[in-house]
């Protein structure tokens, strides 16, 4: 086949559970590969917080909704001759199939590169897939696909329970599960059928408890095949691989078993005809050589990103080159620069991946894990023994002080194995450790959990070392052995009764320091050129301190709710800006999904936990001993790695390590509530009244003084016990009692809740000037976390005086704080008799999650400019001045995206605590068009015609009425719960009342959601948390049925307007054209 000249690459859209930053990494690599091969790349993605959507990565960038209609228009306009569907996750594959079905690929003569469309269908359609495997003699578990519950029962009877249920065409196993009994079968099949876009599920013989092994395979057009690596899930079959702790390479298989599965993998990729990368999952009986093929992903995946980082073999990049016709033996190995991509990496270390679950945010969520993925992100750690890699990975999770020593006080400790939560859940690892400490045997635990005894033995080794540290004097030998097993200074300190700093000092006295070894794909067989390192306690250090000007960029760790891919975007841009300025950039991060941990992003990459110990070790390794100047430390940049990096400012400063940009003192001033209050008072800038309190009485007094509603939040971080809006004294007493019970030392902060218009700005300060590239106005009023709000650039509803005040405040705060680099300020605007009053809610002296968005809509490369400011190049020298940057002739709207369908038990209502996992952007020339695109891309757009359910709290009823009228006027059929229906009837609109009392007959609200009668829900909460049961059921039903549920009337109003304004007319243009050309 001839090489294509122009290729369309489909991105994966917003970050959701099951589809995270790994596809930004894959897409970015693919774009780079296209450029190297001289192929023009056209990229479409709806997610602005990605490196791949940067101008300069792809040749032509579209940030548009990933719909058939939109991508069809882009194809019509760009006329690519090739389509790369395999880099945008399940979203990309599904869209490619839809484009083929719609005849668009044929019409414009676009061929699918890498993986034929038929192969996608073969791999995704369970029945076709099974037939294919049987035809090549590969074993598959007994199974059948069904389209109804009745069929499902019949099949399950034949196979025998337990069975696994897997919906077709869903990502991250959404809607799947294991059924051990008939009731579970009914529940899981019903959800599965609803989730599958083709209403099809597979009922499969269960191999729960078998080893789960994955292979990453590559194949080129000449039929050359290699395996990049294999991976073993520590959690055996039954837990989604995305939710499993995974080790690479496999640890418990013999060579014979490995070769058996490797040979099967090659056979399968050949049978599928994939040209590129493919992930194949097997179940292997731990007591025989029987195995089954479980799943095939004919595309790059989360696992392939992990495999790339685990081995140094860039799967996506090689896959992209294969797709445009290169053979494996024609592609250089970018790591060794001496060998070719046609080889299999040899590791001389192992990696451990641990998922990052959102249960710290969602305390009420169902913590049991199974075949449906729940993790939002993951961490990886590399070391030369399992114990150390595991412990470093746990440090990388950033659960505060939760090392392996952590135990839940709720567990009934003892030698009874039944008292520990050993079913798959996010705390199982800690439960196993607690059980081992109390004498439960390794064999018992292996039998119960089906985790291979080998892994349990390793955990027992860790327990053994804990006991030595507790009971023996800390000698150099013991300390060395503890460090070799991955114990942190803090853990050693806890066990050996010393402060972490004392342990560090002892280490230095005894010259026990980590060395850094290279990830080189070849186990040191060749002299490799990669700058990719990990720490270990061994003899030889391979990472000599880099010479010349340099700085460390501290990354943002695992993707979690509240700290997403935006910060990886910022970290990468900072590294690039350093390089542009003649500095060597050194990246530190622990997240294998990201662009920042691509070894060619920076001059050097340390794949390490982002905590004080590991950063100080790295900085010491990078410090230079000079004759004339003594020891020169390397500076760090903490502004771009989210809260993770900013939290390191203080400890690094304290240990004498310099920071670039705003000082640790500035950061403390902005974060310390009392100091910040004084600071704003001195400037005469208003903020909502409030105080910190430590008792219920004190709280009631303050609340009375400032008036309800109030916003309350603990000044400490504690899982799930979060910010709330409190409307009256009884709610406040409840909240305070709980908060005080949990922690009496730290105050609870109470602020007047101002339900006004929320506005935010991102700004760059250099000490003399403050540049504000743009102002964003939120669609939802204050009270909804800014990360969960829709934000509009430019502030279309702001008055000139409001804008002036905002800019004035931002400049004064920036100058007075001596901000060097980025800051984000959030404002709330309240109407008052003298016009409107602008209050400052908070100031964050770091990059915020809106940086990629605002950079893309304004064209100001904020991270680049800020990094250069930190290096001493003033805004003026960079061609910028103080004040608001010129307003672009466009509207950009950022909309949040949630993963609620995957998190059972989590309430979906919007509040002050962030819940979204990702974001999309709608950009166009008018507000209506941009809004329609943002809603479309976020999956919140309603059909032009349909039915909608209203269930609104009393205090919101007056405000809801105009919205209800609007829905009615566009022809929407109205359904409403008792009180809301009465109000609607009272104003004479047609409405069907439906009961929200689930126990009192059918149909009720949940029924009409489940049976598809309504295709949207508007539901506001009454406040508090206890009386939410009905509302909770409504919201969960909507989440699981995957229909939009609006809990803020502001969002609902926007949607109603988008429907009313017939906003199907929108542009399809490359991103820069919106800024350059203006409306056509």
């Amino acid at each position, binding site marked *: 086949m001839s090489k294509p000249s122009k290729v369309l690459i489909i991105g994966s859209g917003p970050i959701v559970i099951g589809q995270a930053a790994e596809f930004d990494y894959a897409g970015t690599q693919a774009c780079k590969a296209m450029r190297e091969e001289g192929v023009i790349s056209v990229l479409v993605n709806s997610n602005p917080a990605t490196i791949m959507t940067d101008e300069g990565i792809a040749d032509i960038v579209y940030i548009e909704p990933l719909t058939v209609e939109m991508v069809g228009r882009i194809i019509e306009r760009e006329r690519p001759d090739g389509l790369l569907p395999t880099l945008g996750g399940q979203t990309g594959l599904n869209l490619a199939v839809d484009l083929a079905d719609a005849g668009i690929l044929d019409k414009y003569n676009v061929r699918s590169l890498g993986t034929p469309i038929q192969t996608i269908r073969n791999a995704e359609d369970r029945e076709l897939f099974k037939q294919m495997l049987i035809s090549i003699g590969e074993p598959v578990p007994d199974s059948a696909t069904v389209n109804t519950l009745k069929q499902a029962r019949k099949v399950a009877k034949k196979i025998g329970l337990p069975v696994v249920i897997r919906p077709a065409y869903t990502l991250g196993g959404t809607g799947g599960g294991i059924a051990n009994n008939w009731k579970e079968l009914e529940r899981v099949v019903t959800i599965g059928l609803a989730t599958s876009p083709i209403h099809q599920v597979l009922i499969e013989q269960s191999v729960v408890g078998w080893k789960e092994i994955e292979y990453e395979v590559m194949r080129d057009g*000449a*039929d*050359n095949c*290699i395996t990049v690596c294999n991976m073993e899930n520590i959690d055996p079959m039954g837990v989604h691989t995305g939710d499993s702790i995974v080790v690479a*390479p*496999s*640890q*418990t*298989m*013999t*060579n*014979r078993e*490995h*070769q058996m599965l*490797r*040979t099967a993998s*090659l056979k399968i990729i050949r049978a599928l005809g994939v040209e590129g990368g493919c992930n194949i999952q097997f179940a292997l009986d*731990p*007591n*025989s050589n029987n195995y089954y093929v479980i799943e095939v992903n004919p595309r790059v995946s989360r696992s392939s990103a992990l495999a790339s980082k685990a081995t140094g073999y860039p799967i996506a990049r090689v896959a992209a080159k294969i797709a445009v016709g290169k*053979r*494996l*033996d024609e592609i250089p190995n970018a790591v060794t620069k*001496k*060998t*070719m991509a*046609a*080889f*299999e*990496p*040899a*590791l*001389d*270390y*192992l990696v451990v991946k641990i998922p990052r679950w959102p249960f710290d945010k969602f305390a009420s969520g169902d913590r049991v894990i199974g075949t449906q993925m729940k993790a939002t992100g993951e961490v990886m750690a590399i070391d*030369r*023994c*399992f114990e150390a890699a595991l412990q470093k990975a746990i440090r990388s999770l950033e659960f505060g002080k939760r090392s392996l020593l952590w135990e839940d006080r709720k567990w009934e400790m003892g030698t009874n194995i039944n008292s520990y939560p050993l079913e798959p859940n996010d705390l199982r690892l800690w439960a196993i450790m607690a059980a081992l400490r109390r004498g439960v045997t390794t064999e018992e635990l*292996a039998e119960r959990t089906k985790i*291979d*005894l*080998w892994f349990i*033995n390793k955990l027992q080794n860790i327990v053994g070392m804990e006991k030595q540290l507790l009971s023996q004097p800390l000698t150099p030998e013991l300390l060395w052995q503890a460090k070799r097993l991955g114990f942190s200074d803090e853990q050693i300190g806890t066990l050996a009764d010393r402060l972490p700093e004392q342990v560090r000092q002892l280490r230095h006295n005894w010259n026990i320091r980590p060395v850094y*070894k290279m990830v080189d794909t*070849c*186990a*040191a*067989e*060749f*002299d490799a050129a990669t700058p990719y390192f990990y720490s270990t306690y*061994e*003899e*030889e250090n*391979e990472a000599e301190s880099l010479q010349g000007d340099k700085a460390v960029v501290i990354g943002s760790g695992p993707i979690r709710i509240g700290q997403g891919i935006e910060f990886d975007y910022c970290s990468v841009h900072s590294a690039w800006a350093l390089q542009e300025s003649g500095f060597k950039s050194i990246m530190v991060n622990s997240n294998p999904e990201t662009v920042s941990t691509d070894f060619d992003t920076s001059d050097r990459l340390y794949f390490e936990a982002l905590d004080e110990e590991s950063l100080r070790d790295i900085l010491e390794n990078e410090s230079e001993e000079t004759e004339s100047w003594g020891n020169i430390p390397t500076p760090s940049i903490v502004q771009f790695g989210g809260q993770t990096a900013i939290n390191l400012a203080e400890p690094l400063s304290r240990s004498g390590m310099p920071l670039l940009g705003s000082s640790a003192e500035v950061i403390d001033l902005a974060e310390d509530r009392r100091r910040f209050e004084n600071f704003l008072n001195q400037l005469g800038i208003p903020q909502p009244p409030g105080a910190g309190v430590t008792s219920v009485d004190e709280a009631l007094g303050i609340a009375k003084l400032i008036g309800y509603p109030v916003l309350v939040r603990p000044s400490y971080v504690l899982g799930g016990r979060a910010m709330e809006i409190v409307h009256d004294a009884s709610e406040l007493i409840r909240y305070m009692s709980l908060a005080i019970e949990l922690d009496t030392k730290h105050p609870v902060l109470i602020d007047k809740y101002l339900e006004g218009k929320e506005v935010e700005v991102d700004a760059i300060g250099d000490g003399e000037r403050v540049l504000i590239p743009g102002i964003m106005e939120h669609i939802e009023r204050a009270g909804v976390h800014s990360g969960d709000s829709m934000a509009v650039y430019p502030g279309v509803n702001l008055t000139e005086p409001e804008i002036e005040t905002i800019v004035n405040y931002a400049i004064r705060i920036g100058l007075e704080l001596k901000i060097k680099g980025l800051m984000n300020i959030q404002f709330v605007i309240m109407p008052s008799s003298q016009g409107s009053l602008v209050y400052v809610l908070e100031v964050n002296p770091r990059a915020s999650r809106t940086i990629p968005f605002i950079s893309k809509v304004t064209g100001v490369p904020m991270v680049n400019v800020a990094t250069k400011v930190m290096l001493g190049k003033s805004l003026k020298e960079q061609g910028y001045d103080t004040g608001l940057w010129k307003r672009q002739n466009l509207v950009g709207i950022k909309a949040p995206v949630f993963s609620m369908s995957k998190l059972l038990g989590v309430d979906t209502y919007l509040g002050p605590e962030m819940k979204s996992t990702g974001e999309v952007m709608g950009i166009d020339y008018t507000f209506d068009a941009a809004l329609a695109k943002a809603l479309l891309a976020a999956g919140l757009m309603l059909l032009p015609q349909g039915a909608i359910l209203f269930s609104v709290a009393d205090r919101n009823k007056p405000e809801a009425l105009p919205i209800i009228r609007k829905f009615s006027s566009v022809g929407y059929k109205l359904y409403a719960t008792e009180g809301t229906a009465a109000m609607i009837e009272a104003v004479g609109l047609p409405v069907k009342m439906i009961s929200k009392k689930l126990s009192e007959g059918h149909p009720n609200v949940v029924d009409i959601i489940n049976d598809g009668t309504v295709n949207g829900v508007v539901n506001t909460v009454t406040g508090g948390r206890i009386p939410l049961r009905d509302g909770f059921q409504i919201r969960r039903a909507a989440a699981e049925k995957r229909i939009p549920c609006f809990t803020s009337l502001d969002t609902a109003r926007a949607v109603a307007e988008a429907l009313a304004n017939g906003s199907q007319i929108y542009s399809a243009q490359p991103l820069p054209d919106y800024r350059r050309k203006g409306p056509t």
Partner: protein
Amino acid sequence: MTKRAILVLEDGSVYEGYAFGAEANAHGEVVFNTSMMGYQEMLTDPSYAGQIVVPTYPLIGNYGINEQDFESNKIQVRGFVVREECYQPNHYLSTKTLHQYLAESGIPGISGVDTRAITRRLRSSGVMMGTITSDKTPQEALEQLKELPRYGETDFVKQVTTDAPYQWEPELHGETSESLCKIVVLDCGLKYSILRIMHGLGCTMQVVPATMSADEILSLKPDGILLSPGPGNPELLDYIVDTVKKLIGKKPIMGICMGNQLIARAFGAKTFKLKFGHRGANHPVRDLSDGRIHITAQNHGYATDPDSLNGGLEVTHINLNDGTVEGLRHKELPIFSIQYHSEASPGPLDNTYLFEKFLEMVREESKWIKVKQ
């Protein structure tokens, strides 16, 4: 478990670790293998005779030792150097630990050493002699190393070849498939997997000592002759080269690894020592006839000089990494050979098709349609 031991290399570098396996000293040529699995196969591969092996993968012994994966009847390495030896293996087939196996075989191991540092040294300085000891000082070990014979000057084939001819019987299942042909294997240090695979293809496998003469071999009436892999310097094996010369043209011949070098030498070519050899399970080889790449298992320290080839031999395969000769064939005669291991073990099974190719050649040549029984 906590007895100290050291590995001393002849360039004077010393690596401290812990003794495991047998309490003994060992010396030999120190080489590294990059395969991540298959330590049992490595230990029992006769091509490691005279060598101390360093697996680059740090965790060794995880699945113990089983009865299925022996490649010969004993441990062949002189010593084993690992980052971590697993003393609590887990596998349903495991019958003993790595430590027990080494201990009962009288072979010492050393664990806890920085195997990557050792590998980097061998890569940059080339393989060299070394000693594992738990009772000598580095200085003593170094002195002794200078006294010992050099690896390249010892004929290890004589040490590992079978004493008497034998016929391969399937060890485990015992089923006797009908024999389609008879292959004589000249045992220079063969691996059982060769016998397992070819037996599985329906061959009667007759193994003979490396010292057997050509006439004796031909008197066994083989349909084909397989020259096995084996340890050491091919230049010391003139007696086998003479045998091979006499076999040329008589029967179809396949050579593996040492067998490849023996065929080359039989046609007058020269061999040379590689700086640090090829040992691993990931070596890409290009088939020059169709350009295809094959991932191969390798274990050799010597290579054939392509410029010295003559007598109708041509290069069919080259190593993608360093361009060295990986396969030869005769332009007219039914002779071909590979420098890598089509029997894998440890390593990928991608090249077992070569055994079938050999059988094709045998079939073509002898036009046999005979069926035993």
